[in-house]
């Protein structure tokens, strides 16, 4: 059995407006929204991979494409050794039971008119799972540490944290190996968020799950992820073990993200020393040529405007897409140490 569970190769997902075919043809060059624009990524069996980036970076689309919930324009997705890029019908349905998504907004992903018990059994009905292979409602609720009294309630009667747990239970019903969690703690209070992260960790150990955790919150991935991928405008800028990426980041964008984190420690106030990239993320409809970050980057030179930097391995397992990474790393070493606080 290979170590790699999900292997994404040369993936592109472009969204086209509703146009005539010839307009669409023209748009390929200029007007398409390039949500994912050439991504290579491996997710290893049993690990938690954190995918971080600002809104508009394409991180949620990437998660959905891997689950075949969003279209592929180019490239391939290999899941557990087989190419799933073109899978349809029954084959796709079988695949779906092995990979599931925990959605960002649990209340909008649970039908308000159905009771929790019904919602939990829904995956079995859709997939025609024989009774002996099903978990019972109580087992599912117990798995996510909810009381069995909730079975007869409706989604609006649940708190945010409880609804999130029901979402997780639904994702687990079909005994998947791979879960994509999109902003698992968004909208939750600190302590409810902590409980969800703890639960996800326990479930991973118990059920041998592999996670892709999508978030803009670096402190969450710092806590849960084994490896980290940093995404910007449809491309990966840095991939590697969490410790290496956060302790010794080699991409200026990773530095900028790190310096923007609000640490819960007033001694770590950064004031003007933050490395904020000026302006906002450009439109994926018209991404800058060359390195996509050059419009906001302090290290950009003529070369960045022309040549697209490739992901290169700078130390075992640590990949960076920047022409000037050695310079970035030495010049920003102090700030990286400060950004991570007093370890």
């Amino acid at each position: 059995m290979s170590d790699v569970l999900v292997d994404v190769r040369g993936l592109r997902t472009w969204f086209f407006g509703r146009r005539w075919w010839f307009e669409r043809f023209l748009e390929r060059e200029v007007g398409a929204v390039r949500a994912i624009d050439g991504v290579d990524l491996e997710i290893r069996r049993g690990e938690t991979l954190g995918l971080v980036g600002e809104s508009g970076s394409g991180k949620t689309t990437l998660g959905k494409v891997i689950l075949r919930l969003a279209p592929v324009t180019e490239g391939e997705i290999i899941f557990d050794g087989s190419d799933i890029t073109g899978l349809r019908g029954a084959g796709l349905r079988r695949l779906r039971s092995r990979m599931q998504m925990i959605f960002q907004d649990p209340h909008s992903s649970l039908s308000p008119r159905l009771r929790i018990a019904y919602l939990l059994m829904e995956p079995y009905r859709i997939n025609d799972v024989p009774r002996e292979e099903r978990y019972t409602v109580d087992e599912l609720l117990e798995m996510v540490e909810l009381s069995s009294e909730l079975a007869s309630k409706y989604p609006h009667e649940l708190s945010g944290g409880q609804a999130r747990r029901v979402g997780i239970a639904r994702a687990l019903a079909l005994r998947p190996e791979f879960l994509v969690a999109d902003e698992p703690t968004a909208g939750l209070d600190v302590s409810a968020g902590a409980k969800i992260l703890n639960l996800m960790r326990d479930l991973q150990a118990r059920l041998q799950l592999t996670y892709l955790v999508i978030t803009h919150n670096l402190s969450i991935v710092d806590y849960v992820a084994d490896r980290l991928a940093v995404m910007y405008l449809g491309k990966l800028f840095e991939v590697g073990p969490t410790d290496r990426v956060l302790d010794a980041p080699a991409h200026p964008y990773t530095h900028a993200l790190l310096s923007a984190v609000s640490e819960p420690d007033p001694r770590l106030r950064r004031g003007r020393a933050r490395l904020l990239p000026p302006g906002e993320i450009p439109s994926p409809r018209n991404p800058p040529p060359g390195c996509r970050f050059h419009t906001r980057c302090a290290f950009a030179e003529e070369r960045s405007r022309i040549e697209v930097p490739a992901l290169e391995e700078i130390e075992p397992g640590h990949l960076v897409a920047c022409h000037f990474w050695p310079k970035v790393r030495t010049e920003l070493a102090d700030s990286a140490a400060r950004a991570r606080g007093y370890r």
Partner: protein
Amino acid sequence: MTAAAEESRLLEVEGLEVVYHTDEQPLPALYDVTFSVRPSEIVGVVGESGCGKSTLSAALMGLLPPNGEVTAGRIAYRTEDVLHLRPENFRRLRGSELAMIFQDPLSSLNPTFSIGAQMRDVLRAHGGRGDRHRIASILERVGIPDAQARLGDYPHQFSGGMRQRIMIAMALMLEPALIIADEVTSALDVTLEAQILELLRELRDERGTAVLFISHDLGVVAQVCDRVVVMYAGRAVEEADVYALFERPLHPYTEALLAAVPSHTRRGEQLASIPGRVPSLSALPPGCKFVDRCAYAQPVNREREPRWLELDGRKVRCNMYDPESGYEGVRSADGSPARA
């Protein structure tokens, strides 16, 4: 209180109580809330959802919903009692002295008018002239590039971060002495959040604008505030200088909140979560409201509502620090930290 001390308080809230009337029973949303904001000070109010943060900001702005009533206490703005102000006088105060930045800019801006027109209306409503240059210069100040050319744009043409800046610009237009910022960064990415926090700090440094910063995010509060009030179940449970609070929280709730924040130093460990849930306002326990979730609770806490105590320049609402409470092994603020 001496005249000088009065003078140095911009906003003073004393023993504030707010009740929401419902068909079944009145719900006590705020109880005995006391704190103050001095000029050019950034004061944070933190707590989980349902702790009364938003009720507090609504009460301060005189914007409580019709079923909300202030049943006790005092809100004074520059020694003027705001609670008994006539509506038209309160309206004058809002905007020119007190301004609020709301959580969700898209629902607070009118989608059918241009940004320039909406800002001009604010100026005119307060007797100013809606002059384009002035509006554009305020927008540039909060970091909207090429503002002059964008005055005719509508809210949907701006990104989320830009809209939040526009909200801040509108709050600043009349140069208020105090801004109430309610969860202003919770919908933003970390990079934009950092920019907005920096902007608020700069405004304080340049103009001496005081800010009451309401948030559930301890990280953000640690970055921007001078002083912090922690709220739980409608009560202020702790107030301290930001450094003191994060260094050594006194109240068990503050301690538990801080322990629940995920970060690299805790990887692989179980995050400390607080057992149970915030009690519902319709079924508050009689004594300490945190008693069911507290690691240090003793039987006395079930009966005795803790007092708002002053200890070494800090304040805390907890029987554990009150010699009169009958709590066994009462602690002092400078003594052993609140750990079992």
